[in-house]
């Protein structure tokens, strides 16, 4: 009876730690392979286009609406105690520190994390990954490294672009809907602009990019059992990377601002 209870308690725990170990080994191997040739430039370029260029519309839409909403909300909130003039700096801070990196990363996780898990998962179940191995090509270097490197490099750039678009969204609402003076709005945005706001966003973006690529590739890589397995891998990739993005967002924010 007690044994049965302990077993029921222990099994998921053992499973959890063994998959945690698996993931750690996967991460170490992927990172280690980033620095050892051969490098596959063509694969890297394809990923840069996929993750970066083709994510631009999604990131642009997300951040522009986020900026617009923040402008309206902060205006209606701050007007209660007559601090409407803070709208520009609130938009600036919330977009650069939080909204652009987190929302962009979540959108990219849905778009790219899923695609990575599905593509690599299909390659796994159709034995294409074994085929790579038998053609003496290291699947980590050929498949994982280009994706991880591309995501880590490209996501910060996406977020920088998102910053600009998000602030622009706030400006549009502020000037055309809330009746701010355009020159004053821009002036107060520039006066409040601090390097730290931008750098934290960029650091976050790089970490989120790493999370998205690793979770997408890892789940794809270990998927098994045909179409159902690939579907599961895709779901797991998106869910786990989204949750990790939110957790790490808290951790990084704490590291930079909790003083």
């Amino acid at each position, binding site marked *: 009876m007690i044994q049965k209870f302990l077993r029921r308690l222990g099994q998921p725990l053992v499973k959890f730690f063994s998959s945690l170990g698996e993931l750690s080994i996967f991460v170490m191997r992927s990172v280690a392979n980033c620095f050892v040739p051969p490098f596959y430039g063509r694969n890297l370029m394809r990923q840069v286009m996929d993750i970066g260029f083709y994510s631009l519309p999604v990131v642009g839409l997300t951040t522009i609406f986020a900026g617009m909403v923040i402008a309206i909300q902060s205006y209606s909130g701050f007007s209660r105690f007559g601090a409407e003039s803070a709208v520009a700096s609130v938009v600036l801070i919330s977009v650069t520190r939080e909204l652009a990196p987190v929302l962009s990363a979540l959108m990219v996780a849905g778009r790219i994390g899923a695609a990575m898990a599905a593509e690599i998962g299909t*390659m796994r179940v159709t034995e*294409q990954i074994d*085929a790579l*191995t*038998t053609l*003496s*090509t290291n699947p980590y270097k050929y498949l994982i490294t280009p994706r991880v490197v591309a995501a880590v490099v490209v996501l910060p750039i996406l977020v920088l672009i998102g910053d600009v678009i998000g602030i622009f969204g706030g400006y549009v609402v502020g000037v055309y809907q809330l009746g701010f003076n355009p020159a004053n709005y821009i002036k107060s945005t520039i006066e409040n602009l601090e390097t730290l706001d931008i750098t934290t966003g960029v650091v976050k973006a790089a970490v989120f990019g790493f999370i998205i690529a690793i979770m997408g590739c890892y789940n794809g890589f270990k998927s098994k059992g045909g179409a159902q397995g690939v579907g599961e891998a895709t779901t797991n990739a998106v869910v786990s990377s989204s949750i990790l993005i939110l957790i790490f967002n808290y951790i990084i924010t704490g590291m930079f601002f909790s003083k």
Partner: protein
Amino acid sequence: MSDIKIKITNLHKAFGRKVVLDGLDLEIKKGESLVVIGGSGTGKSVLIKCIQGILTPEQGSILIDDEEVVGVSEKEKERLHAKMGMLFQGGALFDSLSVWENVAFGLIENQKMDKKNAKMEAIRVLRQVGLAPDVADLYPSELSGGMQKRVGLARAIATRPEIIFFDEPTTGLDPIMSDVINGLINESVKGLGATALTITHDMASARKIADKIAMLYKGKIIWQGTVKELDKTDNEYVRQFINGSSEGPIKVEV
């Protein structure tokens, strides 16, 4: 140098509690075509993956050209894979690459051949397996099952490997196409002077390809011999398998 290409001794492999290979011994001579037959799920694929180093056995030794391959480093494995080619059951063609890029993959990535020559070489090998040059620029998804098998075969032999593995080469093909593929396998293996290891449960295919046949049952090789000896054997397991009978010493576990 002995004339044994691959020598496997006392190979053990289990997945959790499920024992798949249980002290398997097998020798393949240089230039010989060995066919391993056995029911589904008897560990035929596991055997090939152990030899290739994709799976690591718990116990036992595998010698290729008198060199131990169990437990060697990743770098060593890559060197080892350069000697090998493999035709996968489902083809396992890279669907993001065109047909010729698939065939020339090993040539470009490992032998560092430049693209133009690699493409010419790929087209030559494609012709060898009976495909027209205009197939080269198609993508694998645009090909029929038989054509995909041919492309898979072309990719397996393009790097002129010393050892070629065939994983159920005729599964999913009609009998005539099966015979064509079997013929191509024979031609290419003999043409390269390669050592071949085929796993199949298609007896027609086994008879046509094999110099020697070995039967895998419960993780061990329980019988081996030539095709002629196969028909004369009084081993009950082998008789049941080649006659395709549900009655006999082999019990089907449902």
